[in-house]
């Protein structure tokens, strides 16, 4: 027969766990709201940047000699994967699915005989990837946007990527991150950053069509603007990925903590029933002992 005291302790411990998980859920919910707002606020810049790029690219592509960031180095040997994960755990499958996808990409690229380099953002992804691919990790960042993700955080990562690209350390760069769909669903996305695939002017600028797509003048010339715009665009793309990832992380955590809270509730109910039954059994047993003792007299 289980010990009553032990059961009581067990119930108390599950109850305090439930308190913690429900508090974490609440915190994640409010952080999620903030992250979502931030992601939305970043939208206009990216959208206008895309529109500019589209009109610039259509001009430069005609002339046939775009900058390297757009056309690539011509080789396809060395791939750099930027893996965006979170610094903290307790967020369900969030980091697991990122790492799984990263590993899948690494295996695929290595299978094709290419060299893979890794740049990790976030502690969890780094820790998990380090077990198998420690030699591939060239750089890792932690505590990115711990309080509030700012553009300068993304810029820092982008600068590193650019410096590596300029030094000819890789040919193709992709970012692996969780795209935020809803609080319960995040989509692992692999997006190619370098060479940058410029969206086709038609679908990138739905707003411009009503103005009959103006023919722009450029000051200074297209190539110089592109040379400035493309690194900027890289920062923006990384910033977007970080924002999406931050929102996804909070969403995943909220869902995970919601489940944990519910499971704790179920467990408390079960334990309480066991506790009450056991208590009843003890009482009955004692009664029987008393009665049979009285009868024996």
């Amino acid at each position, binding site marked *: 027969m289980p010990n009553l005291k032990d059961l009581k302790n067990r119930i108390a411990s599950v109850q305090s766990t439930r308190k913690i998980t429900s508090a974490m859920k609440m915190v994640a919910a409010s952080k999620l709201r903030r992250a979502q707002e931030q992601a939305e606020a970043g939208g206009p810049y990216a959208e206008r940047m895309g*529109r500019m790029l589209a009109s610039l690219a259509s001009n430069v592509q005609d002339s046939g000699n775009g900058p390297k960031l757009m056309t690539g180095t011509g080789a396809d040997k060395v791939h750099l994967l930027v893996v965006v994960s979170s610094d903290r755990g307790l967020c369900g499958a969030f980091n697991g699915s990122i790492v799984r996808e990263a590993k899948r990409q690494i295996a695929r690229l290595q299978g094709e005989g290419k060299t893979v380099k890794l740049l990790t953002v976030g502690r969890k992804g780094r820790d998990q990837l380090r077990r198998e691919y420690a030699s591939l990790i060239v750089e890792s960042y932690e505590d990115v946007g711990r309080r509030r993700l*700012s553009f300068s955080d993304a810029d820092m990562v982008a600068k590193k990527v650019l410096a590596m690209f300029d030094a000819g350390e890789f040919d193709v760069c992709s970012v692996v991150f969780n795209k935020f769909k809803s609080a319960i669903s995040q989509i692992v996305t692999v997006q190619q950053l370098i060479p940058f695939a410029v969206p086709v002017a038609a679908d990138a600028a739905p707003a411009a069509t009503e103005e009959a797509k103006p023919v722009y003048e450029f000051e200074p010339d297209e190539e110089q603007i592109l040379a400035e715009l493309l690194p900027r665009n890289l920062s923006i793309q990384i910033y977007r990925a970080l924002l999406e990832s931050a929102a996804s992380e909070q969403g995943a955590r909220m869902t995970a903590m919601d489940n944990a809270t519910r499971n704790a509730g179920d467990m408390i109910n079960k334990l309480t029933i066991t506790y009450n039954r056991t208590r009843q059994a003890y009482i009955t047993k004692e009664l029987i002992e008393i009665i049979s003792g009285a009868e024996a007299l």
Partner: protein
Amino acid sequence: MADKVEFELVSPEKLLKSLPVDMVVVPGTEGDFGVLAGHAPLISTVRPGVIDVYEGERIVDRVFVAGGFAEVTETRCTVLAEEAVALSDLDRVSVEKTIKDLSEDLDDSKSDAERAAVEAKLAVARAKLEALGASSAAH
């Protein structure tokens, strides 16, 4: 001239301003340019400097931008700024201090890349000071 230009100032983090104005003067890399309604479509890079927003003949808003890009169409003027601060929020003392700190950093910096990064920051800070100088002279 009743026509207005839709002026938008966007930073990576948010849409800062979006309002119809009579004219904006943008500090382009190859010289300042004013944008009125019906301006020819133009894409230009922006150097660190001050954007003046005109309502009629009067300047109603002055914003310092630390470089970026401007896209002009006949009805719209969009500035993608790297950093934007209202000129009235700039503080001469702190800007001067930044310049001093950065100058020291410049002496300490070892690699060329480091030096270039500090120099870029210094150029922004100097432009800020210049903008402040111009505005105090105007008043």
